[in-house]
């Protein structure tokens, strides 16, 4: 992956894979409520994908200079194994950890390339993933850590 388009294609593919992943987990979930939540997660990933498609066509611009709050919630949580009776807490942990991994991937890649448009795009992608992570971490903070 050396060009901006290749990187964007990769990122778009990753978002689609994430959407497929949540749909797959939703199929396995036992309760209608959890199915709906997981399908909502899948829709969120599809929204991310649409944004990246717009970036590719020049309709949307990534903003690498923006700083995104890192609540660091997911950093210290234990990995979750996907099961049929997945809970909302499990689903959020999975989502947070996936977004964190994506953020780290783009950040590492950006650190390795010299100053260029490509670097800016990678940094922009990292910021996008950090925003997604914040979305799920804020949800975890609000819904799971209610008494804490």
């Amino acid at each position, binding site marked *: 992956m050396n060009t901006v388009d290749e990187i964007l294609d990769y990122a778009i593919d990753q978002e689609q894979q994430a959407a497929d992943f949540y749909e797959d987990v939703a199929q396995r979930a036992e309760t209608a409520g959890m199915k709906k939540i997981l399908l909502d997660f899948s829709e969120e990933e599809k929204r991310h994908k649409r944004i990246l498609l717009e970036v590719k066509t020049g309709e949307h611009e990534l903003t690498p200079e923006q700083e995104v709050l890192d609540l660091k919630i997911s950093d210290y949580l234990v990995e979750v194994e996907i099961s049929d009776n997945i809970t909302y807490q499990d689903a959020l942990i999975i989502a947070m950890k996936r977004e964190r991994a994506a953020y780290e991937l783009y950040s590492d890649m950006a650190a390795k390339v010299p100053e260029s448009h490509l670097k800016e795009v990678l940094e922009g992608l990292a910021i996008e993933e950090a925003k997604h992570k914040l979305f799920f971490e804020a949800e975890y903070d*609000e819904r799971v850590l209610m008494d*804490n």
Partner: protein
Amino acid sequence: MSLKDLLSPFFVWQRAFEKPYTSKRPTIDRPGAPAYRGFHINIADTCVGCGSCHEICQNHAIDMVAVEKYEGKKGDSGLRPRFDYGRCCWCGLCVDICTAASLRMSNEYAWISDDPEVFHFTAGVDEKPWQDNEHGYRRAEGYHLYPPKRIEMEMLPPEKSVMSFDEVARGYDEQQAKKEADRCVECGICVATCPAHMDVPDYIHSIRDGDYEKGLQLMYRTNPFPATCGRICTRNCESVCPVGILGEPVAIRWLKRFIVDQVDKKDYQRILNEQITESEHKVAIIGAGPGGLSAAYYLRQQGHAVTVFEAQGAGGGMLRYGVPSYRLPDDELDKDIDYIVSLGVDIRYNTEVGKDITFEKLLEDYDALFMSTGLSVPSSMRIHGEDHPRVLSGLQVLADVANGRDPGIGKKVAVIGGGNVAMDAARVSRRYGAEVTILYRRRISEMPADEEEIHESQEEGCTIVQQAIPVEVVNAETQEQVSIRWGEAEMVDDPKGGRPRPVLQEDRMHMDTYDSIISAIGQGSNLNYLPKEIQEKLAVEWGKFTPGEYQHTALEKVFVGGDFANRTADAISAIEDGHHAARGINRFLNPDAYKETEQQVD
């Protein structure tokens, strides 16, 4: 006719050239004295529409009217006072009683119009030139028609309270209760805010009248757990009491408790005098907590045969196994439960649905079903090392204590969390002689626990470390101990207006060792008793049920309520859910009766 009579009309004409005795219109503007009691001013944005001005007005010159700009909401009736100057005698009592200090009087006194219908107006809403008048009558600084401070409740001193599980709040005596009842302005804003819509002003009035039997009757109309709620209610009512704007809110919870304390349990049957006509319907209830038993009470009133299935050996749910007896003694909870049972409610204790009897069997055998099994599963922190044997759950510790078992916490304890379960786990630990540290992610002011509980836990010697985020549980040097690594947090404002969020500061980490760590960060529901295909059909969002009208679910016969079906997860909301579901079940079982009523209304 005399000559004088003939000339007199002409003498009158000479007056036409003299200075007149009356004023010409428009009048010469003569300002009122600075403290003159003239037309009313209301700061309508500050006013909460409590209507105390309307109540106190001796001339019935004030009506409370709906105003488009102000919608009824928590703590605001949405009404504003409308003055009739054909009746007002300018006494200023309305200004003196105003709970929000929004009402005052200008020193304007002239309002001229040919139309007698115009001399009434809604102050602060209808534009008038005197609204910004700086003179006139104001209530003197510090002057109150009612005492701004509530009558203090006698509490066990902390050094004594930690020595036993005796009830900490000792209760009002009659004189104290009457004095406190006198502070109520009977506005009823509390009624709208109470989840169960208890008739607070009227039962407080019954204390003034010394008619406690009437008070008890009024409370049972909306709440069959008055002894319990008189002790541990979350007091939404007090949070909106307008007397609390300039002083302390009326101690509604303690007054409720006072009424119940005056009535002997054996007199309940006679006082409440329930006339039950048996119906042919059978209803099953899962869970004998406040939601389940509230539904049982109101269903029984309708004559339905009610059977409650309870996994534990006694009723009350979280009230018994999650609220320690120093806040709610067992005999007070039993006072409420025993009366419900006395109406013929059959509670099958030690009967777990899904194990001792199947859910499907209940669906088959009963005409309707109400589920209220609450939030009984402690949430897990999901941090590394959490499965250490010295990490205990707050709910388990409280249940052990309720069952008379030693929770085995040791002498140095950390409690994780900031809710009521965390505070109670901490206070229980103090009573077992432990040194207690509470670690909480946010600031004390953001703790979801009742303010009173936080204060009392501190008074009893618990140390609260705020902005402390646990990140890992680690083995200590001995197996009898456990260490926890936690980091300090900085609070960051939520741009969307939510609670400020704690952000871990990884350069400020700490490691402490304890005999046990009690985790109390929240609870979830246990729906394992429901078959998969049933779970599929029930609407569950964010781990909770989202019932429809009258607590009905997507399943024809099934209604839900209580902590796992509402956002507040407190006893009073569960009680209302049970009451509301009972109405729904009654409609469901007697559709024709309701159809007729609805047609009559049409």
